[in-house]
């Protein structure tokens, strides 16, 4: 186990290095530069480029960046000129994480529940009810759901706060809006998976052995059906993390999503790289945990054994 983790760690670090290099190179191909604005004249822009060292050869710049990175220095943002990238990420991530975790828990628990209920009540009312919810969730994008929820529950019915993040009731609408797509997705996958598992032989065996339905469902059916859901857990976590931007914007939550997006819009190289590294590390951790969970839940698969 330890050897496996160590190997995963090394590979992950290599992956992140490749990712950093790729993004570092690619952003410099994007049209424009970090400083140009409507009012900036070309001469002043040249001065600024020189000050920030962008006139030096690319390899020098890259090595400087890596050297700083090894010291934990992500540099200053090019747009938020007095703030270090590390500080920006540190201040904003807790909000995104909070929102993301709530959305994830909500989506997964409710999604699994709906999927199981639908599968067990196949072709009856409950099944169709769950399918409709799933379809709406998957086909309506987050900005529409976010705006609608805010308008209906916040503005019209005045049941919940319209914006910000200052207590439990503030977290309800954003978490639902962010998690809705995942909820729909998980419920669909779970339902399909449950239906597929129910026709397996070991279910028939368990049933004919005399196990009650509840036992069959919980001990065998759910445990096996949940595997495809775990497979997609990685992308789901990723989607939620990167999807916070829209929800944060509508509900005025000072999270990290905004920096991820605005960084590219303003060509803030240091911020783009900093947030990419951050998300990259998170994703790698999430994926590793998913792979390990996979092995635990289904003893037949041990990913690290060849």
């Amino acid at each position: 186990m330890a050897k496996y983790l160590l190997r995963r760690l090394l590979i992950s670090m290599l992956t992140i290095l490749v990712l950093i290099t790729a993004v570092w190179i690619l952003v410099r191909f994007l049209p424009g530069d970090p400083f140009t604005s409507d009012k900036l004249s070309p001469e002043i822009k040249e001065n600024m480029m020189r000050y920030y060292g962008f006139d030096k050869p690319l390899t020098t710049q890259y090595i400087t960046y890596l050297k700083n990175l090894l010291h934990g220095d992500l540099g200053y943002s090019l747009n938020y000129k007095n703030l270090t990238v590390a500080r920006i990420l540190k201040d904003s991530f807790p909000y995104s994480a909070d929102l993301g975790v709530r959305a994830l828990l909500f989506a997964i628990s409710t999604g699994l529940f709906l999927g199981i209920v639908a599968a067990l009540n196949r072709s009856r009312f409950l099944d169709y009810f769950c399918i409709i919810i799933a379809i709406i969730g998957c086909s309506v994008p987050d900005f529409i759901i976010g705006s609608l929820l805010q308008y209906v529950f916040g503005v019209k019915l005045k049941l919940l706060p319209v914006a910000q993040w200052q207590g439990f009731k503030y977290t309800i609408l954003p978490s639902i809006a962010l998690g809705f797509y995942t909820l729909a997705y998980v419920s669909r996958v779970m339902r399909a998976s449950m239906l597929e598992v129910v026709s397996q032989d070991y279910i028939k065996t368990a049933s004919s052995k005399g196990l009650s339905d509840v036992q069959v469902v919980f001990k065998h059916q759910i445990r096996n059906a949940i595997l495809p859901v775990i497979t997609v857990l990685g992308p789901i976590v990723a989607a939620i993390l990167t999807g916070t931007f829209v929800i944060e914007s509508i509900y005025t939550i000072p999270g990290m999503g905004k920096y991820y997006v605005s960084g590219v819009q303003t060509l803030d190289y240091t911020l783009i790289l900093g947030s990419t590294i951050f998300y990259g590390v998170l994703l790698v951790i999430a994926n590793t945990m998913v792979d390990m969970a996979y092995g635990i839940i289904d003893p037949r698969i041990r990913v690290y054994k060849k």
Partner: protein
Amino acid sequence: MKKNTVLGMLLVVIMILSLVGCGGGNQAPADNAAQEDATPSEKVLTYSVLTDMPTLDQSLVNSVASMTLTSQIQEGLVRLHDGKVIPGIAKEWEVSEDGLVYIFHLRDAKWSDGVNVTAYDFEYAIKRLVDPATASPYSFIAEPVKNAMKVNSGELGIEETGVKALDEKTLEITLEIPAPYFLGMLNMPHFYGVRKDLVEKYGQDFAADPDKNVYCGPFVLEEWKHEDRLILVKNQNFWDKDKVNLDKVNVIVVPDPNTALSMFENGDLDFVDVPPNLVEQYMDKAQLYYDGADDFLKLNMDGKNPLKNKNLRLAVNYSIDREDYINITTNGLYDAGTRYVLPVVAGVDKKYGEEYPYEAFPLKADVNTAKEYLDKAVAELGVSSPQDIKLELLTTDTDNSRIQAEVLQDQIQRNLDIIVNIKQVPYKQRLQMETNHEFQMVFSGWAPDYDDPHTYLCLWTTNSPYNQISYSSDKYDELMDFSSTCRDPRERMDALFEAEKVLLEDGAVVPLQMRRVAWLMDPKVKGLVKSYVGPREDYIYADIQE
């Protein structure tokens, strides 16, 4: 049995959801809470901004939000309040005969840490602004100052900048040209005093947090949670503090205009801009103000561009129905642009638009005139029919830009029978394409830096770095040069007006709209001023009266 299964799972789900529920929220306490804590007599103003300020370092501010807020927490030599220049830290000043040398006499004033405000702070600030090592994106604003641009490009040492503190309370500024608008320009935060000792202490972290800067303006920055809110409190060390009525100001960052409107309607904000899409509903309750922005199409006259042909440019200008355009894209909120310079900027004694009324192009499309010009253009360009003329309209990747472009495209195509293609690109890319002259028509605009037509007209001289359309008119250059050195205000303004006429008669740009904003204010707020130049909202003398 199935029911039990379902019930069992329901229990599990509820347990998880209650986990989701516990705790929650770690943002600063609500405004309502703050108002509850406040003593009943405390006057608190709360409003929102669309984006946080990227920086509050006086030399580096680059956005309307940053500049507005800086003007409320700092004070320059003079202040632009409600359209008038009033004394700030400088209690009086003299201008030399030739209009090139300004001497300012400073009053007694303190920074929020008790240290005196001196002329050395201003000298340091202006030198810091043009210093290439500071890399300020707004250093161009110092252009009228002697040697400023040469210092910025590295040609001259920083000592050569035309600013000097003669003693603690006297500041001398020397200009390159006798610009009459220079005094108003000093209202820009880039000319405010900066404390050298603090810059040296904090380096690049200067002004990153409230405690890393000091304040000499009506308010002090007490708290700044980035991307969340700022809290200002009355500055007890402000030289004019008796005139300041507000005790506290809450500035909340709300990126979504619809959300801000909802917050205003809930009573959480004291004033708000109405989102343009909802303006119709609020027209009877809202006030309007010009925000200074003036939008137009730039027509590229480079090389082989069909728009090199003056008749084609005029044809395009006459083919656009500005009234329909304004009604469709802005529900009548913006003012149609039938001329180039914003009419509400200062003229000599009255507003520029009052002293020099001008309608270069009609409000409705004039298809006959357009077709006349088009026929001439077709002949001169040597094509067989208008359909052979293809123009590309470049614009940014936002919803509004899209709608604006679609209307223009439809009008030009229908009225002239030429082909117009739309190209939407991200903002930075559009800027780069403009710099490289890689466009034919581009949707562009300009906001004023000072209260004078010159701020709009200076873009189109042959050597202007902002002239990306290769427009070159000797007459225009002559008039602009003349206005830069002319000492008689009336003659100078006449020349600027002539220049505006030349520009539009050449069809160099297609004026489209002057932006106005509809805003709502709680009636208990008094003395709040909105302006098209300088601080967007100015509440230094505002008051709350229940």
